[in-house]
């Protein structure tokens, strides 16, 4: 791995974490903690993306110790983003947003067992409350848990994909050309 890509990983991880903090300012119920992972994958491929996901989880865990089991989700996100980048799905919102929604489904399917087994569906207050809502609606426990994760993950991943698409298109050609996957991800190579 070249030094450039090595230098990208901490920056991409820090982007995820900084965005998670900044999203409060617009009062939207989003996490955006996989944005850096998706971006790193779209720029430099799955290896860099997975490394970014692991590093993001590690540092996130230092802030809140309950995040580390979800490193699995970050890795899945990186792999999905790689498939999306190969298919050039970042070429516009029309393709990126549905791809993000698809990731939302996959991410919640992956995180539900973790949430259920490790935390009894209380990963965050929001998830706990939506799970309670699901239970009240008559869903069995695991499905209610999925309902809880799904509601928050669905929109979150779509927004992350949309943001990464905007970033990729906003990169000057000269910079994008230096990242191995960037041009392919936006369907320009």
């Amino acid at each position, binding site marked *: *791995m*070249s*030094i*450039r890509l*090595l*230098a*990208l*990983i*901490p*920056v991409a*991880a*820090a*982007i995820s*974490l*900084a*965005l998670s*903090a*900044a*999203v409060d*300012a*617009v*009062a*939207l119920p*989003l996490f955006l903690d996989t*944005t850096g992972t998706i*971006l790193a994958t779209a720029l430099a491929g799955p290896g860099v993306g997975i*490394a970014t996901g692991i*590093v*993001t989880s*590690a*540092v996130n*865990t*230092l*802030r*809140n*110790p*309950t995040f*580390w089991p979800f490193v699995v989700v970050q890795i899945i996100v990186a792999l999905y983003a790689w498939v999306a980048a190969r298919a050039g799905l970042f070429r516009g919102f029309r393709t990126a947003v549905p791809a993000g929604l698809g990731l939302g489904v996959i991410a919640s399917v992956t995180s539900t067992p973790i949430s259920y087994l*490790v*935390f*009894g*569906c*209380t990963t965050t*207050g929001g998830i*706990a*409350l939506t*799970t*309670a809502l699901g*239970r009240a609606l008559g869903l069995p426990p695991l499905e209610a848990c999925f309902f809880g994760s799904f509601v928050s993950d669905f929109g979150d991943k779509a*927004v992350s994909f949309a*943001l990464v698409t*905007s*970033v990729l298109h*906003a*990169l000057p050609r000269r*910079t994008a050309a*230096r990242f191995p996957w960037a041009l392919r991800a936006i369907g320009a190579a």
Partner: protein
Amino acid sequence: MSRLHPYTLLAIAGALPAFAWILPAPSGGTWTAAVALVLTLTPGESPGLTGTGASSGWRARLIVLRTAVVTAAPFWLFLLLLHDVPTTIAIGLRITTMVASFVWLVAALAPARLVEAMVASGWSASVAYLLAATLSAVPMLKARAQRIVEAQRCRGLSPRGGVAARMRALRALALPLVLSALHEVDERALALETRGLVPGIRRTPLAPPPDSAVERAARWVLLVACLFALVRRFTVPGVS
């Protein structure tokens, strides 16, 4: 506590939650949670990432304990909302163990010592760099995000308005942050290269933390104990 080798600290912080999950509830969870909470009272060395600098004085130590309790408390609340009492206690103790172990680890382990331990035990400089560099980069990017938020507020960004407006606001916030960070990646790469950080090099360790045979043995014992408990859990009938 903080004089222990970083790997020993990691081993303890990893073993306690592992035991909490493997050992039968609620007794298993109770003593691991108790141990973890007591650990949070032991002197930590680094100002580290909690910024407490808990190296002396009972007040400083109580801050670490308080952080652990405050982080774990909401889980108990939500567990009660969703589950019956025995399940709540079982899961709650496990989560408390995990939270307390990590909070203690963060207070006791200075990142610099961990980086040095990794370098000394043969990890390539690149891997050590990843963890350390992210820790340094996060506060800087957060501060930059804050500045962008404030700048945008001067231009009328506000958490009011419909979803579409807020999404546009989010984009106005995220794009400058990400683009400037990416631009810096190139500059950072140049600086790292000129300082000799080549992938795969073996650095000279500057201040390798001392390790002792006792600590190494203790780490192995912890690992074996975990595995033993795991095997026993799944093979001996009648153990829930």
